[in-house]
């Protein structure tokens, strides 16, 4: 059909439709896959969080409104575990992102044996968390750990240090294990993002007299921002919910020094049969993560503008 007066109203009527319908068709499969499985448990957990559901009193499940939430929000143990989780999240995401960015830049440089680095670098990430955690438990051991052996043989320390038994060092050892495992994750996702940047921009900038540092600040960082933000949010979510690696390495000890909020939730809810509290804690964790994500977006918008 050719352009003409007939065509115009038709276009006006149908123009917004195709895009919306196309979008619906594109999004629908993902929505189905996500929502079919998750919606029922999400709603059920929200519902459960409003009841006093203790497995040890079957049949007695009174509606308590927001009392489970109030109980937790007024509990010192809860806030203590939240602060541990925030510390873990802050330190690990900062280290993983900055080291990951550096590693990605390195893997992006044309040099020999780059393929080796690019293949080997995922080893820590590929190692199942259970093995990773038990490996670091052994390495950090105060009697026969290889970290102590290395530091003692190189003269850095004189006496073996019980890394996981001191409340001053235990959290840092857990952070080390997590950073070792997840830095490659950040590096590989950022490396992929770097490939999307037009290399000729670098050349052009260089010709215009820009140094490497300026290229990094003016071209790479702004263009990578969307990917870095996504990686940041993903790592924050995972770090705030961290469970397996800490549970296996320290069990939350010594004296709750590494008891993050997910471990606290497991202890108070799952181990103690208190599913109402467990569901409420789950939602509180989700709310904290959303708040963190909102803070990122805000900071980003401010620096971006």
């Amino acid at each position: 059909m050719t352009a003409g007066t007939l065509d115009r109203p038709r276009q006006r009527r149908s123009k917004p439709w195709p895009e919306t319908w196309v979008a619906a068709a594109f999004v629908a499969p993902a929505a189905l896959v996500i929502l079919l499985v998750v919606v029922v448990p999400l709603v059920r957990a929200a519902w459960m969080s409003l009841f006093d559901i203790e497995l040890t009193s079957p049949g007695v499940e009174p509606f308590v409104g927001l009392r489970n939430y109030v109980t937790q929000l007024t509990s010192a143990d809860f806030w203590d575990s939240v602060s541990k989780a925030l510390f873990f999240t802050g330190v690990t995401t900062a280290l993983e992102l900055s080291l990951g960015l550096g590693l990605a830049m390195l893997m992006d440089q044309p040099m020999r044996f780059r393929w080796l680095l690019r293949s080997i670098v995922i080893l820590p990430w590929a190692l199942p968390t259970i093995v990773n955690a038990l490996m670091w438990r052994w390495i950090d051991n105060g009697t026969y750990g290889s970290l102590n052996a290395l530091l003692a043989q190189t003269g850095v320390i004189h006496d073996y240090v019980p890394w996981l038994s001191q409340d001053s060092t235990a959290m840092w050892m857990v952070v080390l294990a997590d950073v070792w495992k997840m830095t490659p994750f950040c590096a590989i996702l950022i490396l992929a993002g770097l490939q999307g940047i037009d290399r000729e921009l670098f050349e052009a900038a260089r010709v215009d007299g820009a140094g490497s540092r300026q290229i990094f600040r003016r071209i790479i960082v702004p263009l990578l921002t969307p990917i870095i933000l996504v990686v940041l949010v993903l790592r924050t979510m995972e770090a705030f919910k961290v469970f397996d690696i800490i549970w296996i390495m320290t069990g939350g000890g010594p004296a709750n020094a590494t008891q993050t909020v997910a471990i606290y939730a497991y202890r108070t809810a799952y181990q103690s049969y208190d599913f109402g509290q467990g569901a409420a804690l789950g939602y509180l964790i989700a709310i904290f993560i959303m708040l963190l994500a909102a803070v990122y977006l805000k900071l980003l918008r401010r620096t971006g503008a």
Partner: protein
Amino acid sequence: MTIDRTTISGTDGRAHASRVPARRKPITPGRVARAMFLYAGMVIALVVVVAPFSWLVISSVADKADLLTKPLEWIPAHISFGRFVDLTVGSSADETAQGFRAAIMNSMLIASATTAVGMVVGTLAAYAFARLRFPGRSWMILAFMATTMLPPIALILPLFQIMKALGLTDTPLALIIIYSSFVTPYVVWLMRGYIETIPRELDDAGRVDGCSRLGVLWRVIIPVATPGLLSTALLAFLLAWDEFLYALVITQSNASKTLPVALNDFIGRYGVDFGRLATGGVIAAIPPVLIAFAFQRHIVAGLTAGSVKG
């Protein structure tokens, strides 16, 4: 193609001119220093990555007693690959080893299927979120992401009930369904990020050439976004490869046990068979590393393809 030239308009000629001599630049002290800096960085990165892992490898081939000397002897006195033999081709009477072998196959199936489902539906949605304008665009992607914000502990019981009601407990299908739903939001987010770094003009050019939206995604976006696509696929695969809590609750037998659950079986009530666990860990890390090895050339694909121009 004209579009991308506009982004670097005016510098094109000079950039082109400067590149040819750049390839044959004479060796200067500055360039040597830069190369040394880069290779030093590579060596450090390799050492940091490999050192803890090599301790795992040592533990997998050593007698436990040889790991307990003080000062520590890094090369154990007795080296034996017996544990690798036991776990891979050992006797079928060893039920833990049998379970481990079944778990590798289950995990391969579950992680591959999860990756396939997640990547297909996730990339489609990501394209829509990145490029199409439609009502609910901004809140819908947040809603997708929000589903992954609850910790597994809060969801595990209802999920178990659903799978039991559907008669799917102890099947790989149950885990494929669960993992797909948790991996998809990640794929949507990441792929949207990668697609957004691709200049929109490319889409328009494709549209002008008569491609449908799907055609643009398939012919234009996916080839350009290959590095992002592969990295995201790796993420999807490893999420399913490493997940523990859901697998623990849903699986009951070798019919569906995954690797992390099988590895957890090496941990007794009071005792960890560390040598065997280390062996299992080394074996479990091999498939993802092979995948990464196969992928790593293609992660460069966008780069090489880009520099071919000219």
